[in-house]
């Protein structure tokens, strides 16, 4: 039989376990805790920028295409005050080729052209996003940017690339991301380009102060 002291200790242990579990789950949801860095080729802006944006994006998502324009504008306007890191969150159930697109963009990034390749994917989204066969556009864009396509193919199949993408997806799932584009601006969540601009306004003073 459990004596009174042990019962109290058990109750205390239960409370500690319960409270710590809730705290961690909330911390995950509110994006408290270290952010996994994106590879350098997916990151734009100085490391020390006062405003850090992480964007979970899907190259086959129209809203991400519109948001990309806004992000580009913000980078132009706020320059050194802003650092944008892209993370992949391909919505595989509705966009059959977005995982491939993300992998090729990363592999283009390894050849120094993540942004350029990503821009082509966004601009021509309707041509490749819903095709039945594997889109030939992936190779066309690589050729247009003078990228080494065989190297990109090997890279896109490599365990390292696949692992990196899966980790981005797992991280997004853990944070409760379920739509693209989702942004975390200094830890504050924004979904879609409209919310991004609203949230960014809150940091306008910091951003303007950091202007050269």
């Amino acid at each position: 039989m459990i004596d009174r002291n042990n019962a109290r200790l058990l109750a205390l242990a239960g409370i500690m376990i319960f409270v710590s579990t809730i705290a961690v789950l909330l911390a995950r949801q509110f994006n408290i805790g270290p952010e996994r860095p994106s590879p350098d080729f997916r990151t734009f802006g100085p490391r020390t920028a006062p405003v850090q944006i992480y964007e979970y994006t899907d190259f086959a998502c129209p809203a991400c295409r519109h948001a990309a324009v806004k992000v580009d504008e913000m980078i132009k306007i706020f320059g050194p005050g802003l650092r944008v890191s892209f993370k992949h969150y391909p919505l595989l159930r509705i966009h059959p080729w977005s995982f491939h697109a993300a992998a090729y963009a990363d592999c283009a990034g390894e050849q120094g052209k993540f942004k350029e390749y990503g821009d082509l994917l966004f601009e021509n989204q309707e041509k490749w996003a819903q095709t039945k066969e594997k889109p030939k556009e992936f190779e066309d864009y690589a050729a247009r940017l003078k990228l080494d396509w065989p190297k990109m193919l090997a890279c896109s199949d490599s365990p390292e690339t696949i692992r990196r993408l899966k980790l981005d997806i797992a991280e997004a799932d853990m944070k409760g991301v379920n739509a693209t584009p989702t942004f975390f601006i200094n830890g504050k969540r924004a979904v879609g380009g409209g919310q991004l601009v609203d949230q960014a306004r809150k940091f306008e003073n910091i951003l303007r102060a950091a202007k050269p």
Partner: protein
Amino acid sequence: MNGKIQIKDLIGLLARLAVGGLFIYSGLIKALAPAEEFGYAIESYKVLNAQLSLWAAYVAPWVELYAGLLLAAGVFTRLSAVFSGALLLFFEALLGQAWLRGLSITSCGCFGSGYGNSITREFTQNLVFLALAWMAARYGGHWSADKAVETL
């Protein structure tokens, strides 16, 4: 007990906080990261397959966090310290077999992916914490929840 603070009690408390703190930190840092990240680290030890590594990665951070919290607070102090020591021994066995087999492990996974110690350094560090866990089990009973409950 004459109410005087004895040095061994202080050592016991510090050992408890050190080992407990270590487990809280390592559990927290992993529980706040995707399980897949830790899963890949476990997989690199080549003891479990990918599926089981992922399951272990789901469970282990919480076990570490709870063990650390209970030990730091001094709830069932001796049991918590022995359990923490057993966890450390288990980690030593994993590190030891990886070292003996010459596995190339870039990140031990001990504190998430952002932290990479060499296997030998991690092994040595764990030995220190193992000694501290023993001290916590032996002398960590003072200034603990166990003691507080006794006096209620």
